[in-house]
Structure formats: structure tokens, C-alpha cells
């Protein structure tokens, strides 16, 4: 709850508190702060000019464009899917619900490489649909559609996962009231449900986007690594690193770190907005 200050739940001896704080801070520094700083230090090692040049080569721009296109397709689709799934799961009672919820979680539990390999197995030339696709001259793997498919698979739990608990705790009273007052299905959805969930929806979208832009493993398998065509930003970072262009690799990597920064800031903003809006409601509740 907002406004509550730190409370000592247990009177631990001072040395325990200090040790735990030191461990937490040490870990944070070692695994989060130091690598983040290092990315920028390495990227800027050869000067600002090299840093900017690395980000503006045609290949870097192609990689950035591909990453943006991929996210622009994968994120809206996953938002629509997440909304529909969360609505369906929390607003109706039916058998097999737990199974569906676990299925939605599956991409969290599976290594992204596997999602890439499954895409290749399904759509690759010797794969299940490969011969048909080739006969009709449709390219899926080693082209944009494959990259988008792999990205969608990896990122599809984010929006649904964010909405399901929210919708569950919110309950169905408001919607029932709207129904009694004569609102139709779509009307209820757009006028009651959507305005209520918009902040957690946005939160899910932000996380989904961050992952979509940063995905490496799944995309690496289906990309084909064609220069200027199928290299996303994370793949391009690896290529630069492998080509001894360390400064350039870290420059481009810093873009991803900046993306993480923006994601965190947006996330904070959304949390803050959401709390701000909800406060009067919770205040007026008995």
C-alpha cells in the first residue's frame, strides 16, 4: 500500500541486516551495474565519433529497422491475443482452463532456441510445410515472417500474464452491472473492461516489446544471417563482436541497454499513473 514506510517486521541483529544488505548490493553491482556501465565504457572507448559511426552504418540501420518492424508486428498481435486470452480465461468458467493457462506460460519455460528450431522444422525446406511453401514461392524461415513467428512465440505470454491476475482480482461486478443496465458484449468490453485494465495492459505491452526487440536465441536460428536483411540488432551485435569490431559491438549493444532503460522508465510511469488513478476509487470503497 502506498504511504507505508519501512517496518521492521523482525528484530534481526545488526550484523544480519548488514550482511544481507551487503550481499544484495554486491550482487546488484556485480551483475547489473558493472555490466551496464561496461557496455557504455567499451562502446565509447574509441571516442564519440566511432560510437556514432557504428550506429549509423547502413548495416546497423538495417538491423535497427528490422528490429522495429519485427516488434511492430509481433507486439500488436500479442496484445490482441493477450487481451482475448485473458478475457476468455477470467470471464468464463470452463473445463481445461488450467491447461490453457499453463500453455500460455510454456514459452517462459522453453529455451528460445527450441522455438527457433521448431519454426525451422515446421516451415524449413525439408520440414512439414516446407515443400508446399516452396512450391508456392512463400518464404517463411530465413526471412521476415520466420523472425516474426519466432518472436511472437517467445513473447506471447507477456500481455496475457500481466492481465490475468489483474482481471481475476478485479472481479466481474462492474461488467455485470453494465450488462444489467443493457450494455452489449462489445460495449461492455470497450467501455468497462478496457478502461479498467488499460494500465496493466500497457505494462504488459512494454515488457512484451522489450523482449521482442532483445530476443536473440530464437531469432538466431531462423534468421539465416543475411547481411542487411535478416540480422536484428542482437544478432548484429554478435556479428560485430565476432569480427573484432569490439567498440562497434558495444555501441550497438548500448542501444539495447538504452531500450532497457526506457522500458524501466515507462514501467515506472505506468505504475505511478495506475496508482494515481486507482486511489480515489479505492478511497471511496467501504
Amino acid at each position: 500500500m502506498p504511504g507505508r514506510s519501512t517496518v521492521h517486521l523482525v528484530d534481526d541483529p545488526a550484523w544480519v541486516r548488514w550482511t544481507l544488505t551487503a550481499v544484495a548490493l554486491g550482487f546488484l553491482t556485480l551483475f547489473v551495474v558493472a555490466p551496464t556501465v561496461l557496455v557504455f565504457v567499451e562502446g565509447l572507448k574509441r571516442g564519440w565519433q566511432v560510437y556514432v559511426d557504428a550506429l549509423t552504418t547502413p548495416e546497423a540501420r538495417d538491423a535497427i529497422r528490422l528490429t522495429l518492424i519485427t516488434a511492430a508486428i509481433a507486439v500488436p498481435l500479442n496484445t490482441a491475443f493477450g487481451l482475448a486470452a485473458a478475457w476468455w480465461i477470467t470471464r468464463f468458467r470452463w473445463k481445461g482452463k488450467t491447461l490453457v493457462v499453463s500453455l500460455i506460460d510454456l514459452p517462459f519455460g522453453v529455451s528460445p532456441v527450441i522455438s527457433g528450431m521448431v519454426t525451422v522444422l515446421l516451415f524449413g525446406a525439408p520440414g512439414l510445410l516446407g515443400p508446399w511453401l516452396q512450391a508456392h514461392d512463400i518464404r517463411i524461415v530465413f526471412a521476415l515472417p520466420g523472425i516474426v513467428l519466432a518472436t511472437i512465440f517467445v513473447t506471447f505470454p507477456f500481455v496475457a500474464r500481466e492481465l490475468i491476475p489483474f482481471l481475476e482480482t478485479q472481479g466481474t461486478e462492474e461488467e455485470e452491472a453494465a450488462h444489467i443496465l443493457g450494455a452489449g458484449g462489445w460495449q461492455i468490453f470497450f467501455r468497462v473492461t478496457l478502461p479498467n485494465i488499460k494500465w496493466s495492459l500497457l505494462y504488459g505491452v512494454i515488457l512484451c516489446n522489450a523482449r521482442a526487440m532483445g530476443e536473440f536465441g530464437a531469432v538466431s536460428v531462423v534468421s539465416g544471417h543475411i547481411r542487411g536483411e535478416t540480422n536484428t540488432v542482437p544478432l548484429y551485435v554478435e556479428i560485430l563482436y565476432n569480427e573484432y569490431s569490439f567498440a562497434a559491438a558495444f555501441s550497438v549493444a548500448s542501444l539495447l541497454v538504452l531500450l532497457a532503460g526506457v522500458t524501466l522508465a515507462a514501467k515506472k510511469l505506468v505504475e505511478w499513473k495506475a496508482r494515481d488513478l486507482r486511489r480515489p476509487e479505492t478511497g471511496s470503497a467501504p
Partner: protein
Amino acid sequence: MTLDRIRKTAVRALAILSGLLLGIPQASAAPTTLLNVSYDPTRELYEDVNSAFAKEWKAKTGEDVTIRASHGGSGKQARAVIDGLEADVVTLALAYDVDAIAKAGLVKAGWEKRLPDRAAPYTSTIVFLVRKGNPKGIKDWPDLAKPGVQVITPNPKTSGGARWNFLAAYGDAVRRTQDDAKAREYVKALFRNVPVLDSGARGSTTTFVERGIGDVLLAWENEAILAVNKLGKDRFDIVVPPVSILAEPPVAVVDRVVERRGTAKVANAYLEFLYSPAGQEIAARNYYRPRLSDVAVRYEKTFPKVKLFTIDEQFGGWQKAQATFFADGGIFDQIYQPGS
């Protein structure tokens, strides 16, 4: 946010999205394109080749051609081509990988006879990259098996380059001792000196160069020269052993793809260009040993004389070498015990 605004935003987002989607095929509907699927360290080489060839093709035929490139581990690239990566030509690290593509029916059998020199327009060999001043005094293959020498080489199970390294070491030992058992003892001692077995050649180079592990890196000659030039002449020396293996990175047209795309003529011309004086010059400039002797003469300083033996004469070809040494339960599995 009102309902109206949400709707408007959604419509706008959809418009932008469809614009992006429609924009992609238009952007890539350029004139003729070729896709060259290659292995890791050939980026600079093929950047030069591609622009030179495009110019020559334009002068000869008046047609524009754009060559796209894809780089990765040789085996992984072969796998991608088999899985449907639409390569018009492949330029890989070893014949075994092109054989794999041929086995999948994409390249016609006998591909290695369709171009001169077993379809390898340029060659390389395996050399030693050592720390500046060569503090461990590494001069020849037997030095690698001495106690106290740390050798960096990738895993021959996963890396094409590592297989060349292994066969170079083994081949030299057999030629030296005329005894297979002794050669096995030698490579066993050598691999006991390997502290890290990376999965690819570039990984090993990074281990040696960036992480500073090991006394000697077994590397392709072109990789070694490139590493020295890019990462500091004052930090490393290249030691060329008296005898080494002739590494022949092969090239091939992917018949199935060029037939479908109608690019057979330009794809063949592209590979033939690699054998031309201009192509050979570019190869030599990128530290690959040229086949043409008058180009080779001009680069004598870059490529010291080494006695070179081939896979075919020493091991009876790649298929046989692969089965004997690197298949599961093969000689590599017998001599290498991790962590010992």
C-alpha cells in the same frame, strides 16, 4: 483515454503497420540478386569480391547485380542452406559441408570437379599464433605436445577450422613417425595441453586474444594475419611450421536454387571470377593463398613457404577423415577425455 481516441490510435497503428509490411517486398525487389552463404572469417574477402564482380558484370553484360552475404560457422551455414536458406552459391570452410548440401539434393554430385582445383579457388593453411617474442619457443608441431605449453584450438566435433587443426597435427605426426600409434599418442598429449575447447574458431581466437589464455593458438593463416593486423602487431607473432596442411575452402553453385531463381549464369560467373587474376588478387590481399602463380609471386612476403600435404593424399578425402577421426567413437573421442 476515450473510446474514440483508442479507435483512432488503433486505426493509425494498423495503417503504419500495413505500410511497413507492403514496403518490404518493394524494397527488396531489386534487379538480380545473388546470395552467397559463407563461413565466418570471409566478410572482408567477399565484400571486396562482391563489389569488384558487380562492376565487372555490369561492364560485360550491362546488367546490375547485387550480392548479399551471410556469414556463420561453416556447418551451421550448410545446415541453414539445407533447411531452405536460398543460397545461390556457397563458399564454405570444408568440402564436407558442401557434401552435406549435395547429399540433401541441392547441389549436384561431382560439384568439386565443376571448377578447377577441387573447386577451391584460394587456399590457406594452419599456422601458430603465439605471444610476442614467442616466450615458449614454439617452432614446430612436436612443441605443442610438450608439458607446460597451453594450446588453444576449438572443438573438432563442432568446428570446421578445428578439424583442419587436428588433421594438420595428426598428419604431421604420421609423416614424421610413420606410425599411427605414435601419432595418436602425440595428439593425445597435445589435447591434454588444451585448457578450453571452444565451439568455434572465432571463439578460440577471442579466448586467446581477448581473455589472454594459452601460449599458442592454432589458426587459419588468414585468421592469424587478420588477428595480428586488427588487434595489435606488438602483441602477437605468427609462427609458420615447416610442414602443414593445405586447407582448401570450397565453393559451389547451389543448383536447385539457381534453377528456381533463374540465376545460374550469373552465379557461375561469380564463382569463375574468383579464379580470374582480379579475383585472385583480392583473395591474396585478404590473406588467402592464391592459386595463380603470377599473383602468388607478388605476395611471397605474406605467405612464407611451407611444405603442404592435402587431405586427399594423407587421409583419403574428407568423407573418410570425418568417419575415422570425428564420428562418434572415432579417434578424437578415443584420445580426448574432458578435464583430464
